[in-house]
């Protein structure tokens, strides 16, 4: 491998560590809540906001301008409000259905908005499908600061966030305003996902969110252990994925996504060897439920 390539990978690698840090944590919540596709849905809603902003005559048709940013953020918050109000413990309609509907409608509405815009669709696609290879140090530092704030917020209120994700019924019984904390969760989550997607693309962000969390569940039950495993896996896959991308000269984001899948499969295969107890317990549970 050519050593000079390392200097170009430093910023993308730093970005991938930031992504690992926040998404492996948020992923634990998302998987516990069973709202796996919520990030795709919120990212699409944000993109719809960006497209609509480009149509507004006073927004200056600048895809990197402040209007586009603020209006997509407003749409993200709107999406967060929708997802937090429809969460019913009594409702018959699964939340995943609402998330799917929001995704489909937001995507189609973005196409309609694009068909009305004078500017080229390339800008918009670029906004939705960021490229981690092209990340600059500027972006890395800005994102690190933003995610740091979100991270501190979640750390300070970690007990409430965990309570509403793990056992919302008990949380409500204990007098917690579940709807408010749900909104705060989805709002901070949407804020993070929208920035991440514009930096690394939808697919890669989805992987950073879900795969470490799922991989960790194969090996541990405790939240703390799962986070440690998730962070380690995210870091290893980031390095490995970039190595493959350079070694075989493949598009970086897609290579990292496939590396996530590969490492997850390897971890699943090794599980009976490394954690025979957990594997046996799951097999017995499956037998009982059958």
């Amino acid at each position, binding site marked *: 491998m*050519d050593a*000079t*390539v*390392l*200097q*170009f*990978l*430093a*910023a993308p*690698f*730093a970005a991938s*560590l930031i992504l690992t840090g926040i998404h492996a944590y948020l992923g634990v919540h998302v998987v516990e809540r069973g709202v796996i596709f919520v990030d795709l849905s919120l990212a699409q809603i944000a993109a719809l906001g960006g497209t609509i902003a480009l149509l507004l005559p006073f927004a200056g048709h600048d895809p990197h301008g402040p209007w586009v940013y603020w209006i997509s953020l407003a749409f993200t918050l709107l999406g967060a409000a929708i997802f937090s109000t429809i969460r019913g413990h009594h409702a018959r309609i699964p939340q995943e259905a609402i998330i799917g509907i929001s995704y489909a409608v937001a995507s189609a509405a973005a*196409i309609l908005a*694009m*068909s*009305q*815009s*004078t*500017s*080229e*669709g*390339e*800008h918009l*696609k*670029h906004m939705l499908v960021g*490229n981690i*290879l*092209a990340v*600059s140090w500027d972006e890395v530092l800005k994102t690190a600061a933003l995610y740091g704030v979100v991270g501190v917020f979640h750390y300070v209120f970690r007990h409430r966030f965990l309570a509403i994700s793990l056992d919302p019924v008990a949380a409500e019984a204990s007098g917690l305003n579940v709807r408010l904390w749900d909104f705060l969760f989805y709002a901070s989550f949407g804020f993070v996902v929208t920035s991440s997607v514009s930096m690394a693309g939808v697919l890669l962000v989805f992987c950073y969110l879900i795969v470490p969390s799922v991989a960790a569940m194969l090996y541990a039950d405790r939240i703390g252990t799962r986070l440690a495993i998730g962070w380690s896996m995210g870091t290893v896959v980031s*390095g490995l994925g970039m190595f493959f*991308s*350079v070694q075989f*000269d*493949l*598009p*970086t984001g*897609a290579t990292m996504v496939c590396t996530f899948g590969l490492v997850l499969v390897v971890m699943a295969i090794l599980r009976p060897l490394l954690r025979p107890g957990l594997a046996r317990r799951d097999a017995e549970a499956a037998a009982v439920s059958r």
Partner: protein
Amino acid sequence: MNLRLLVPMLAAALLAAPGVHAAGPLNVVTTTEDLAAIAREVGGDRVKVEALSRGYQDPHFVEAKPSFVLKLNRADLLIAVGRELEIGWLPPLVTQSRNSRIQPGANGYLDASLTARILEIPTGQITRAMGDVHPQGNPHYWLDPGNGRRVAQAIAQKLSTLRRDDAAFFAQREADFAGRLAAAEKRWDALMAPYKGTRVVTYHRSWPNFAERFGLNVIGYVEPRPGIPPSPSHTLDLIQEMKRQNVKLILVEPYFDLKTPNAVARETGARVVVLLPSVGGEKGVEDYIKLFDYDIDTLVSAIKETGAR
């Protein structure tokens, strides 16, 4: 990786970046294979030319690979199509390359469109009613051999400023290319002469320069905006207009899906013809003159077989 590793790596990166270049061949990087082909014609063995995108790819959307950044980092000259064609992928890579020689505005950056003849430049206020508008004009200008000649001149001048000693060499090669291109144009004009004014529909607005140069009459577009399906009324209007004017040909680029053009062709009895917008779009189409050889041959035989007028 932690910060302790990162800092020395960055320091090494900063020290290594602006290398001193010996008198080997100039490293030229182009965004498309068309520009690479022309740069090779002009530069000969005094340049080493690499194209980032392949000829069968849509130059609007190119997946960046790590090697792109490396190539850009080592380039003495970057030649881009311009007119916002590469806006979706090139600018961040150029920034990432940390190569001050090829930043826009620097001496090692050439926007090939600056001296070309650009069509469809909007005048006055851009409104929604105008449909898909490139604010800086249509970027598919290389599909007119006249623009190929202008781009070759621009490249020869640029190479001469980077390598003054070789100026005569570049000028001579540029003149030679212009001569061969002029001879080929006579051949193409002769082939197309009987079919001046043939009415065609194109998939996307990629062919205005080609149509103007070779006398095609583009009466409509299948999908006026890339990636956005046309409305039913647009498609119906197009089909009716094609029937009314008896249009027999739908020209499509190889990277677009043929479903919609095939459906329109079924309705109208027209034929879908895949023309190459770029060098390298098909095996054997490896230089600028062969690109037009291929397109003109394909077009002429399709016109003959369908009786298009």
